[in-house]
């Protein structure tokens, strides 16, 4: 993402330091991760210390300081899904992809995350891949569902 685009986003939020999180959310949404030089540019333009931005970028789960995989695999670990066996789905996925939640595999194919409640509790356990919701998952089906995503 070039500096011009970053500056545009900052200008849209009137260059206010209180909009720092909103600015980073827009950048994350467009660019899918936050490179170090982007953080430095935002720090400069909004006149906030880099330590504050670093803390924000690592404190909030929405941000990633490393590139993400092509397919985002999110396992809902909300209470309703947990009670319906979400932990087993997660175990199966870890075995299938070889990565743990928060990680991306070396081919940049999958990024695995746990999320707390997608709000589709009637369909629990829920798996969300690339924004598409797969409900009423069973361990038996997990491998089949994952195969669709190359």
């Amino acid at each position, binding site marked *: 993402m070039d500096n011009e685009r970053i500056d545009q986003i900052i200008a849209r939020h009137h260059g206010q330091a209180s909009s720092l999180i909103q600015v980073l959310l827009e950048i994350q949404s467009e660019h899918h991760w936050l490179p170090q030089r982007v953080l430095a540019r935002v720090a400069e333009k909004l006149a906030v210390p*880099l330590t504050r931005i670093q*803390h924000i970028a*690592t404190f909030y789960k929405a941000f990633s300081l490393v590139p993400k995989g092509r397919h985002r695999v999110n396992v809902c670990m909300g209470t309703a899904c947990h009670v319906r066996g979400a932990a087993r789905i997660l175990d199966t996925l870890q075995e299938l992809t070889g990565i743990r939640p928060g990680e991306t595999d070396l081919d940049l194919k999958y990024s695995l995350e746990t999320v707390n409640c997608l709000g589709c509790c009637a369909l629990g356990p829920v798996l969300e891949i690339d924004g598409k919701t797969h409900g009423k998952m069973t361990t038996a089906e997990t491998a089949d569902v994952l195969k669709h995503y190359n």
Partner: protein
Amino acid sequence: MREIILEIDGREVKAREGMTVLEAALAAGIRIPTLCYHEKLEPFGSCRLCTVEIEIKGWKKLVAACVYPVEPGLMVRTRTEKVDRIRKMIVELYLAHAPDSFVLEELEREYGADRNRFAKEASFCIHCGLCVRYCAEVKQKHAVGFVDRGTRKEICFVPEIAARECWNCKECFPLCPTEALQAAYVLCTALSHK
């Protein structure tokens, strides 16, 4: 600033509006243990060692003295069975990370803490925030900051700023209760050394 009269451990203490219980106690020479408190910095409320029991209008509760504002008629007890139990627990939780800290060893003796109560997780830094806050509030250089949250929280130097500022400063080093800070600085300079 109007004067406020409160009672600490049975003694009448005079304070000014806007002071915290801890400040009032310090001015009166009454000791309350602290770790993350420093008179040049905004109170942080992180270590909770300064927890005291207060009573106002018949209501009793536990609060952190470093942030609780004084009010007329307040009664403060700096040592009770429950307060001591909690301070002992806090020290034990800290000792799991930094068993050799001098500051913690003193508290360990005073409260009869068991340094082996919890399995050791030698991460040393106990997140008191003194270094981060000193650099931000007093030196205003922001060379070191926190990253992440919860149990994953750590301190982290900004290499570019640290390279410029820290060698000739190092004012935060004596503040660190566990010397984790010095270790972090050495690691940072080692990593950014070309």
